[in-house]
C-alpha cells in the first residue's frame, strides 16, 4: 500500500510534467485539458471543505461556480462594450483585470454562501441536500430569464482577461496561473483541516451533540465552512469562464453540482488531493471515453456506482488501503 503523502506529490508532479511535455510536443489541446482539470479540481477542493470536513452534502455548489463565472462575464462584458454597469446612482466600470475579477467572484459567492447557508443550515440531512439543490435551480432559472446578460445564450468574452506580468493568452501561462491558485487552495485546505476550527468542524460532522457540549455551536462552524467553500468554488468559476471565454446558465446547472461531488468521491472524500485526482480522472475519462463513444456518461455512471457500492474511499482509498483519512 502506498502512503497518501507520496500519492499527493506524484499527482502534483504529474500536473507539472504533463503540460510541460505538451508544450514541447506542441500539443496545446492537452494543456487546455489539463487547465480544465485544474480548474474543476479547484471547484471541488472548495466543495471538499464543506463536504469532506464538514459533512455538508451540498447539491447546489454550482451556484457559486456560476456566480464566479458571471462575475467574470459581467465585468469583462462591460469592459469590452465600454459601457459601465449602472445600478441606479452606482456606476461600475467593467474590467479585464483578473485580480479584480477574482476578488469580485470571491466576495459575491461568499455572500451568496452566507445567505444560502443561513437558510439551509436550519435543517440537516436530506432537507439540506434538497434545499441546496433547489437554490441551485433558482439561480439557474434566474440566469436564463435575466436577458440583460445573454439569458439562455450566455455571454461571450472575446479576449482572455489579463494578469499583471503574464501573457494569459499563452495556454501554458494561463495553466500555470490556475495551478498556482489550486496549490494555494490546497494549502488553505490543509491548514484549515489541522487548525482548531478544522478540528471542531470535523467533529461537528461526526458528533454534533459532542461539539455542543464543549460549548461550541456546530451550525456556526458549518456556516463558516460553507462560506469559505462557496468562495473557493466561486473563484474557480471565474477561472473556468476565462478558460472558455464564455459563461452561460449551464454553469449553474444541477448536473454540475452533482459532478463536483462525483469528482470528490472518485478521488476520495475528505482527502486533501481527492478532488484533484477525481478531476484529473474525470477530464481524462471525458476525453478518452468521449472519443470512443457518444454515450460515455453511461460508463461514468457505472464506474461511479461501482465506487459507491464497493470502493469506499475512492482512488486514494484503493491505493492506500484506507477507506478514510484516518481509518
Amino acid at each position, binding site marked *: 500500500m502506498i502512503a497518501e503523502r507520496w500519492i499527493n506529490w506524484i499527482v502534483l508532479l504529474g500536473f507539472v510534467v504533463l503540460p510541460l511535455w505538451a508544450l514541447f510536443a506542441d500539443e496545446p489541446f492537452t494543456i487546455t485539458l489539463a487547465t480544465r482539470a485544474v480548474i474543476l479540481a479547484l471547484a471541488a477542493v472548495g466543495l471538499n471543505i464543506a463536504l469532506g470536513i464538514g459533512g455538508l452534502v451540498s447539491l447546489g455548489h454550482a451556484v457559486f461556480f456560476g456566480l464566479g463565472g458571471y462575475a467574470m462575464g459581467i465585468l469583462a462584458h462591460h469592459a469590452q462594450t465600454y459601457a459601465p454597469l449602472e445600478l441606479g446612482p452606482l456606476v461600475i466600470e467593467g474590467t479585464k483585470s483578473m485580480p479584480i475579477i477574482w476578488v469580485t467572484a470571491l466576495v459575491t459567492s461568499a455572500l451568496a454562501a452566507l445567505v444560502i447557508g443561513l437558510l439551509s443550515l436550519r435543517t440537516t440531512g436530506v432537507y439540506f441536500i434538497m434545499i441546496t439543490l433547489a437554490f441551485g435551480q433558482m439561480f439557474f432559472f434566474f440566469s436564463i430569464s435575466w436577458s440583460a446578460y445573454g439569458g439562455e445564450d450566455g455571454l461571450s468574452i472575446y479576449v482572455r482577461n489579463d494578469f499583471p506580468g503574464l501573457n494569459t493568452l499563452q495556454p501554458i501561462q494561463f495553466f500555470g496561473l490556475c495551478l498556482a491558485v489550486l496549490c494555494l487552495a490546497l494549502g488553505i485546505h490543509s491548514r484549515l483541516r489541522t487548525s482548531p476550527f478544522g478540528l471542531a468542524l470535523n467533529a461537528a460532522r461526526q458528533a454534533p451533540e459532542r461539539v455542543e457540549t464543549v460549548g461550541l455551536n456546530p451550525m456556526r462552524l458549518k456556516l463558516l465552512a460553507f462560506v469559505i467553500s462557496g468562495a473557493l468554488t466561486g473563484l474557480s468559476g471565474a477561472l473556468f469562464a476565462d478558460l472558455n471565454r464564455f459563461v452561460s446558465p449551464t454553469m449553474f446547472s444541477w448536473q454540475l453540482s452533482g459532478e463536483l461531488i462525483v469528482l470528490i468521491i472518485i478521488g476520495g472524500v475528505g482527502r486533501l488531493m481527492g478532488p484533484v485526482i477525481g478531476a484529473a480522472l474525470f477530464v481524462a475519462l471525458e476525453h478518452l471515453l468521449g472519443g470512443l463513444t457518444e454515450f460515455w456518461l453511461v460508463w461514468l*455512471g457505472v464506474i461511479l456506482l461501482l465506487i459507491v457500492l464497493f470502493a469506499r474511499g475512492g482512488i486514494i482509498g484503493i491505493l492506500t488501503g484506507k477507506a478514510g483519512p484516518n481509518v
Partner: protein
Amino acid sequence: MSTILILEQVLNGLQFGIMLFLMAAGLTLIFGVMGLINLAHGSLYMVGAFAAAAVAGATGSFLLALAAALAAAAVAGAIIEIVVIRRLYRAAHLDQVLATFALILIFSEGTRWVFGSFPLFLDVPSYLSGPVTLPGGIQYPLYRLALIAVGLAVAVFLWWLTARTRIGIQIRAGENDREMIAALGVDISRLYTLVFALGAALAGLAGALVGAIQSVQVGMGEPVLILAFVVIVIGGIGSIKGAFIGAVLVGLTDTLGGIFLPELFKLFMEPGAATQTGSALASMAVYILMSLVLIWRPTGLFGARA
C-alpha cells in the same frame, strides 16, 4: 386582466401542482418508509413518458400507452431497487445521492442511446382533446381537466392505501420501526420493493400524462424532480398530505407568478423592465416560497419536528 383569464391560470396552476404531487408522493413515501433520497425518481418519470410514447406510436392507443408507462416505470423501479437501492438503505445520504446520481447518468444516456436525441411526441387522444366550456363560460382544455381528475383520484387512492389497508399499516409501521415490523413477520424487503415500485409507477404515470402536453425527451425528469423536492421540503418529508398541499402551493405559485408578477411590476416600472424583472422574479418565486416556509418551519408544514 379578466376574471376568466385568472381562473384559467388558477386551473393551469392546479393541474401543474397535481402532476408535481404524483412525483412528490412517491418521493416522500420512499423517504418516509426507507429513509432514502432518490435522485433517480426523475428518470422513472422519463421512463414512463418514453414507454408511453413508444407504445402509443406502435398501437395508437392512449390507454395502452398509460398502462405501459405504469408497468415500465414500476418494473424499472423494482429492478433498480433490487440491484442497487437495497444496498443503500443504511448508507450515508452522500452515498445515496451519488448512487442515484449515477443511475440518472445511466438512465439518461441509456435512453438517448436507444431512442436518440430527438424528442418524441405523444398525442392527446381524440376523446380528450379540445376545450370544454366550464360554468362561467371558461373554455378549458378537457385533457388538462382529466389530468386534475386523475391526480385527485391518485391522491384519494393513496390516502385510502395508507390509512385503510393492511399494506398501509405496514408502511406506517415501517416508518417508525423496521425491526418491529420485521419481528411481526412482515417480509420487509418485499414491502420495500413494493413501495419503491409504487412510487416509481406514480412517477411514470406523471411522465406519460405530462408527455402528451410537452415533448418527451431525455432530461425531462430532473427539473420536475427538483420541483418535487421543493414540494416535499415545503410539505414536510414523509407526509402525503404535506406533499399534496405543497404541490398545489408550488403549482399555483409558479404558474400565477409567471403571469402576474410582470403585470404587477408594470404598475410602477416601464413595460420592458417590468417584464424583465417580473419574469426573472417569477422564475425564483417557488424557491422564495420555500425559503419563507423554511424560516417559519424548518421541517416543513407537516413534517415531524426533528
